[in-house]
C-alpha cells in the first residue's frame, strides 16, 4: 500500500513537472488585467464606446457585403455555391441559411446584421457585443501579435488586432473557421479569409465609417472592398439574445421547403 502511494505520488510529480515544462512563457496579459491597462500608451484618437447601428439609408447592396464585384474571379467551389444560391434565389428559396439554423453570422456579416452593436473601448481592447445572438468580438489594442496558428482557436469572428494610424484604427482579422461561414449568400468564407478594416469617426463622433478589404484566396481572387457606415444610437439597448434549440419550432419559415441546402 505504501509502495503504491509512493508510486502515485511519483507519477503525479512527473505530470506536474511535464506540464510546467510545456507552459509557454509568452502568454499575454488579458485586456482587463490592471497591469496591462496601466501600461503607458498614446491617447486613442477616438472612443467607440457606445451603441451603433448600420446605416441602411441606401439600397440593400450599400450596406450588405455582396454581391461580389465581377472583377473577383471565384474559385471553382465558390462558383458552384454562388450559382446554386442564384438558382435558389430565382426559385424564391434561401440557400444554406446557416444563420437561420443558429450558426453564428461571423465577421463581416455580424457587423451589418441589422441589429445594434454595443462597443466598449478600453486602452487595451474594444469589446463588441451584437444584439444578434450576443455575438462577441474582441479587437485587441494592447500590441500583441496574431496568435500562433497552431494554438489559436478558430472562430466565426476571427482574431482582431488593432493599431492606430493617425486618426484611423486599422484592424486586421484572421483565424476564421472553415465552414458554415458566409460573406453573403453563396459566397463562403474559409480559413484563409483575412479582413482589414480601416475605422474612422465622422460627424463629431456620431458616425462610424469602416472601409473593408477582404481577401480569401480559397474563395475568390484578389481583394473585395466595401465602405459602410454606422450611426450612434443612444436609445437602443443590447440585451440577452440566444438561439435556443426550440426557437425555430415557432419560426415556420426556417422549416419550410423553401430552404435549399
Amino acid at each position, binding site marked *: 500500500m505504501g509502495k503504491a502511494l509512493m508510486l502515485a505520488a511519483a507519477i503525479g510529480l512527473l505530470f506536474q513537472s511535464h506540464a510546467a515544462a510545456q507552459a509557454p512563457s509568452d502568454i499575454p496579459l488579458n485586456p482587463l488585467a490592471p497591469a496591462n491597462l496601466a501600461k503607458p500608451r498614446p491617447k486613442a484618437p477616438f472612443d467607440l464606446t457606445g451603441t451603433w*447601428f448600420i446605416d*441602411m439609408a441606401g439600397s440593400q447592396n450599400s450596406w450588405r457585403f455582396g454581391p461580389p464585384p465581377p472583377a473577383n474571379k471565384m474559385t471553382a467551389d465558390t462558383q458552384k455555391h454562388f450559382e446554386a444560391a442564384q438558382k*435558389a*434565389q430565382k426559385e*424564391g*428559396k*434561401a440557400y444554406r*441559411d446557416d*444563420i*437561420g*439554423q*443558429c450558426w453564428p453570422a461571423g465577421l463581416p456579416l455580424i457587423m451589418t446584421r*441589422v*441589429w445594434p452593436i454595443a462597443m466598449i473601448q478600453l486602452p487595451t481592447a474594444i469589446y463588441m457585443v451584437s*444584439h*444578434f*445572438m450576443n455575438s462577441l468580438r474582441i479587437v485587441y489594442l494592447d500590441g500583441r501579435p496574431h496568435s500562433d496558428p497552431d494554438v489559436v482557436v478558430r472562430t466565426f469572428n476571427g482574431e482582431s488586432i488593432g493599431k492606430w494610424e493617425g486618426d484611423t484604427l486599422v484592424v486586421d482579422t484572421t483565424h476564421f473557421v472553415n465552414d458554415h461561414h458566409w460573406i453573403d*449568400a453563396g459566397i463562403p468564407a474559409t480559413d484563409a479569409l483575412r479582413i482589414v478594416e480601416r475605422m474612422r469617426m465622422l*460627424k*463629431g463622433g*456620431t*458616425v462610424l465609417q469602416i472601409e473593408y478589404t477582404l481577401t480569401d484566396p480559397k474563395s475568390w481572387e484578389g481583394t473585395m472592398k466595401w465602405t459602410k457606415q454606422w*450611426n*450612434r*444610437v443612444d*436609445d*437602443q*439597448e443590447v*440585451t*440577452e*439574445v*440566444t*438561439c435556443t434549440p426550440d*426557437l*425555430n419550432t*415557432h*419560426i*415556420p*419559415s*426556417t422549416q*419550410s*421547403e*423553401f*430552404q435549399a441546402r
Partner: protein
Amino acid sequence: MRAVFFAAVLLASTSVFAHHSSAGIDRTKSVELVGTIRQFSWTNPHSWMEVDVPDGKGGILTWKVEMTSPAYLVRAGWKSTTVKTGDEVKVTVRPLRDGSPGGLFVSVLLADGRTFTERPAAPPPPKP
C-alpha cells in the same frame, strides 16, 4: 365567421430584424386570420404567436406567426400583455409560400378595436 381571407396585395415593408432568411415568405400576399390566440411569446430574438383559426369543417387550424424582437415591438407600442391566450383577434400575415399554416406578422386587430403593427421606428438620425 370566415376563417381565412386571402388578399393578394403588394407589401412594401420588410422585416429585417430576423435571424433567418425570409425566402419562404410570400411577400406578395397577405392572409387575414380571424381566430383566437393560442399562445403568445414575448422573447428574443423573435416574438411569436399561435392563432387558432376555424377551418370551416368544424376543426381548428393553428397558424404559427413569426414576429420581430420585443425591442422593436415596444417601439410600435406593444407590451408583453398586449395579446393573451384566449383573446379573439384578427391577425394579418404574409403567408408561407408552401401553403402550410404559418407566416410573417403584419398586424393584429384586438377585440377592443386597437390595432398593433411591428414597424419599429427607424434608427434616429445622428444628432448634429
